[in-house]
């Protein structure tokens, strides 16, 4: 029964409604008790029903006649409804689910009563005349309305409830069993109302202990006796209800108060909110795009009609390539547009639709190429890579991601061909890049500076140990090896090339421990970027020691400790103390033990260069933490806060700052 979404605390198996009620200090047992009583009362009434049926109809007719005028007004703008209705409606929801069986049993009774209840506004006179005729009329009317949108449904049901309430003394249950679809619509409508923060009437009514509709009461103004209905209005001073004539008078004199009650969010506003949220996720930051970007969008859209791109600048070429790849429109035809004879750099971000032959043509048409990046080039074969090795005489940098068809022998041949010219190499997602290929790489390309090995099936200690033969490495990336990579070989590698490393990524090397951190501490003096994401065995002590008196390193620019579950406040403090001045990017995603102490500590420091931070799933992050962090980090422009359930819409943000993943932004 979790009809209410957007509750900020997640706690245990409680439903959102329970949570909501507890938050508001509402005791559900009272509601349940009252509700149980009403059910019992109904059952008793049920037995007396048949006897009293005729009496009931007469009474109901009279009451409905009195309410008639009001209802007519209420139907269009659900306004004049008293707080009691809202309460009742909510209570009824609870009842309805439990009582479906009961309702079914009563199905036959329903028909009898239909004339009285359904017909919007003026059922009274009809009911007073002939029951049978009206029943027919009611049925046809019902059939005439096959699809009811929820607003209508809502008003109708309100009306029915109203009537039911009037009849409580005599009648037992609603006569029409709501269909599933209608129930759903109603729930939806109610959920929407609650989301809009329209909970005040709920609280008010509980607090005021309002008389239950159906009771007899005395008017606070004229003292006459009347039956309380859902539409009965509270008197001016608030300690009584008004009878219908007095209520009407009051309503006429003060119409303004009733009109503003449901400020529904317009669909346009909701769409706007959604598109803003989507733009945030896409990293679409600036309000107005540059003219170049707009043109690039246009060109990308009509890429099939373009004959040649001509000279538009390498960066524009790259942007078009990015957009095409994002839309999966890079294919054998469009890729040819990028073959400019004098080009030095080509990057294709999704080559999954490009055949090996077209990829091979890169070697033929762009012989001046120095850097080539091919992502997801799964269709590339041996012949293609061999061709690059012989044809691209200036190639220095090659990254092939997802080329799973290229065999190990081919890699070996390629390294032999290209020799020491190769400065940067990256490979990913293949099970054919094994120790022999690594060995050939190390033997033939001693000048290698950048090496990226991502998600390789057969990357193990043996391969890593071979990397000790690359003394010039500046960037080393070993991401998610599928076989075990342990401390020993990594430490060996760090001992040989550690002093030159500026970037070290050991993302997802799950078997590494604090010993690796020790080696980093001792040898990596020039390190700028350190990525230890998902190295789960690291402890708080290890991380603390890495950043304690790490004098040979001036400070890191980027640090990723995603999923380093051991990290605690003390370790966090050490990091900020050592690298806070230079940090540009920091991720402590899922470091669950970071709490308010760390955030208080942070306030003492300045983070002058911090631009991007990820604190997702750090549960201690709340509005205050974000606001305070903004104060100490003047450059901070992106903060990721997925799963930080304490953050609310009230958090004050500054211009140009992007908070990504806030719950209230996404649940539009």
């Amino acid at each position: 029964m979790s009809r209410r979404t957007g509750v900020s605390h997640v706690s245990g198996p409680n439903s959102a409604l329970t949570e909501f009620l507890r938050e508001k200090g509402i005791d559900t047992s009272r509601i349940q008790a009252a509700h149980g009583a009403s059910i019992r009362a109904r059952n008793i009434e049920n037995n007396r029903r048949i006897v009293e049926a005729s009496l009931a109809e007469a009474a109901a007719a009279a009451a409905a006649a009195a309410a008639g005028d009001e209802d007519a007004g209420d139907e269009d703008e659900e306004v004049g409804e008293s707080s009691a209705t809202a309460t009742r409606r909510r209570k009824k929801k609870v009842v309805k689910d439990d009582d479906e069986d009961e309702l079914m049993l009563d199905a036959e009774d329903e028909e009898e009563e239909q004339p009285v209840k359904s017909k919007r506004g003026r059922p009274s006179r009809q009911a007073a005349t002939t029951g049978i005729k009206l029943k027919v009329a009611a049925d046809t009317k019902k059939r005439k309305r096959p699809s009811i949108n929820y607003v209508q449904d809502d008003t109708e049901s309100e009306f029915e409830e109203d009537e039911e309430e009037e009849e409580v003394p005599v009648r037992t249950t609603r006569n029409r069993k709501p269909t599933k679809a209608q129930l759903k619509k109603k729930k939806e409508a109610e959920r929407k109302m609650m989301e809009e923060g329209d909970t005040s009437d709920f609280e008010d009514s509980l607090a005021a202990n309002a008389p239950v509709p159906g009771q007899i009461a005395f008017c606070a103004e004229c003292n006459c006796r009347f039956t309380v209905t859902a539409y009965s209005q509270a008197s001016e001073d608030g300690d009584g209800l008004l009878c219908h004539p007095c209520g009407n008078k009051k309503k006429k004199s003060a119409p303004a108060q009733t009109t503003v009650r449901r400020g529904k969010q317009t669909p346009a506003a909701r769409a706007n909110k959604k598109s803003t949220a989507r733009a945030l996720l896409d990293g679409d930051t600036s309000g107005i795009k540059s003219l170049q970007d707009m043109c690039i969008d246009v060109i990308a859209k009509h890429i099939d009609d373009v004959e040649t791109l001509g000279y538009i600048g390498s960066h524009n070429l790259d942007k078009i390539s990015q957009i095409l790849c994002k839309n999966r429109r890079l294919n054998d035809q469009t890729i040819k547009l990028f073959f400019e004879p004098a080009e030095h750099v080509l990057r294709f971000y999704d080559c999954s639709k490009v055949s090996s032959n077209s990829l091979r043509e890169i070697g033929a048409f762009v012989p001046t190429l120095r850097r080539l990046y091919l992502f997801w080039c799964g269709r590339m074969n041996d012949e293609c890579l061999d061709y690059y090795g012989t044809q691209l005489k200036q190639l220095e940098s090659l990254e092939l991601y997802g080329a799973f068809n290229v065999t190990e022998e081919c890699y070996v041949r390629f390294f032999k061909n290209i020799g020491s010219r190769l400065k940067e190499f990256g490979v990913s997602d293949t099970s054919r890049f094994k120790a022999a290929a690594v060995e050939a790489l190390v033997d033939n390309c001693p000048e290698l500076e950048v090496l990226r090995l991502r998600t390789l099936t057969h990357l193990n200690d043996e391969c890593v140990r071979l990397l000790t033969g690359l003394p010039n490495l500046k960037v080393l990336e070993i991401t998610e090896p599928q076989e075990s990579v342990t401390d020993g070989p990594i430490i060996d590698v760090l001992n040989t090339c550690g002093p030159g490393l500026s970037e070290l990524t050991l993302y997802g090397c799950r078997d590494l421990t604090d010993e690796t951190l020790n080696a980093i501490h001792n040898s990596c003096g020039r390190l700028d970027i350190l990525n230890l994401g998902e190295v789960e065995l690291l402890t708080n002590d290890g991380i603390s020691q890495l950043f304690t008196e790490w004098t040979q390193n001036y400070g890191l620019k980027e640090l990723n400790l995603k999923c380093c579950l051991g990290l605690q406040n003390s370790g966090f403090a050490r990091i900020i103390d050592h690298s806070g001045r230079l940090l540009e990017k920091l991720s402590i995603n899922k470091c669950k033990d970071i709490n308010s102490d760390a955030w208080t500590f942070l306030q003492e420091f300045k983070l002058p260069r911090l631009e991007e931070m990820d604190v997702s799933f750090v549960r201690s992050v709340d509005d205050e933490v974000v606001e305070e962090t903004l104060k100490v980090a003047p450059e901070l422009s992106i903060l990721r806060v997925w799963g930080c359930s304490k953050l609310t819409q009230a958090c004050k943000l500054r211009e140009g700052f992007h908070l990504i993943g806030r719950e209230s932004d996404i649940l539009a």
Partner: protein
Amino acid sequence: MSEVIDEEGSLTLVSNDGFQFVLPKKCAFASKTIRNMFNKNSGYIEAKENCVKFEEMRGAVLEKVCEYFIYKYKYSGYNGQVPEFQIPAEMGLEILTIADFLET
């Protein structure tokens, strides 16, 4: 070299086929290239004459570029729904090269 740029007043942009477009400087300075031309310390003649002649732009393209300047000036900093700026598909590449030149 320090920047001395007068943001007041208007300037004229002239296309190679003789069309003239007069627009406020504030708008035209969305282009870094034009802005730099009007830096008095760099001594471009355009800064004195308040007029720039683009030999490589035809009127239709320059008109679109001017439209963009106004569009950008009008909607930057606006939080609501910004209407899309329309670029005819056949002009896309041409405007792209010019936008690259104008740094806008």
